[in-house]
């Protein structure tokens, strides 16, 4: 399975997320939400008639535990986030996907190198496993980070 970095304008970011999830929704997926709450994402996806039944949310925006099936992890805790993603990848059987929306948000809370390290860990862990990794990032943010991490992905799409 492949890993893809999608660099897209802020305006088109959500539409791209919707398209990605819609395309991959036949399989279970892990959704790491870094700039919207899981409720907000779920509502958007439901409006687009995209099933969220097989989506596992990691909410990095709110810390309030409202549902037992959602993990809340602070974006500052990259180790914990990495561990949670790895555990989901291991525990979900068969083909699956991972969406990171949006990667550059991590730069608000972490050093650029730490974020790069985090990306490296995730892509390395996912390679060779039945998981499709899609990381999205707005065009305008974290250009230096993007320069550092694009090598970790199999594909980089600029839209």
């Amino acid at each position, binding site marked *: 399975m492949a890993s893809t970095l999608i660099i897209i304008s802020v305006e088109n970011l959500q539409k791209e997320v919707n398209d990605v999830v819609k395309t991959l929704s036949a399989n*279970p997926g892990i959704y790491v939400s870094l700039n919207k709450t899981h409720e907000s994402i779920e509502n958007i996806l439901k409006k687009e008639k995209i099933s969220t*039944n*097989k989506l*596992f949310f990691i909410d990095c925006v709110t810390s309030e535990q409202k549902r*037992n*099936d959602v*993990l809340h992890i602070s974006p500052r805790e990259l180790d*914990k986030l990495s*561990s*949670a993603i790895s*555990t*989901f990848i291991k*525990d*979900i*059987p068969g083909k699956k996907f991972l969406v990171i929306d949006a990667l550059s948000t991590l730069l608000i809370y972490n050093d650029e190198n730490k974020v790069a390290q985090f990306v490296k860990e995730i892509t390395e862990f996912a390679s060779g496993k039945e998981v499709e990794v899609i990381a999205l990032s707005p065009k305008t943010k974290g250009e230096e980070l993007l320069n550092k991490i694009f090598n970790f992905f199999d594909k980089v799409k600029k839209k």
Partner: protein
Amino acid sequence: MKTRGNLFILTILVFTLLSSVASAELLNLKTESKNYSKEQVENNSFFDIFITIPQNYEKVELGAELLANVKLINLGSSGRVDVLMVYEIKDVDDKPIITKKETVAVETQANFVRTFDIPQDAETGAYKIYAKIIYADGKEAAAEASFEIVKPSSQKTKDYLIYGSLAVIILAILIYLSIKSKVIIDRIKMKLQIRSIVKKKLG
């Protein structure tokens, strides 16, 4: 009459003889008594000795000076007598660390102060100082006092620093381990939660 007179003279002579013998006996007795008294002087200690350590010196640091007050009392012979003084500082196992000798002249009483340099390499702990006076044909009198050898304050400060640093390091390790164990426990909890979420959603 003549016989009576002779008997009288004889009685006087006998009496005189007896009295002279008695006097001599008495004189001998007096001499013996004097001799006995002299023997007693030789057999019993006629010097008394006291040694005291001032309160300030009851704890002496390694390499410092111990001060002791010595008091000698001449109970026997009159006049000036030269005596040999032996000082010994011994640890609890009776092992001497300092031995000092000197001759002291005493008339009726002598009070003096003696100092002893405590070796740097001595063991710390309880010690005793023994003061012994040797006089007239090896007769002795002795006294003792206790004190303690302690580490110098600078050494103590060093020790406190070392122990303090060790305590801080141990505390830091404990805090680190406690944080680390909390992280590990949190991770295990999170993994169990993920397992449960996946199980619920995907059956």
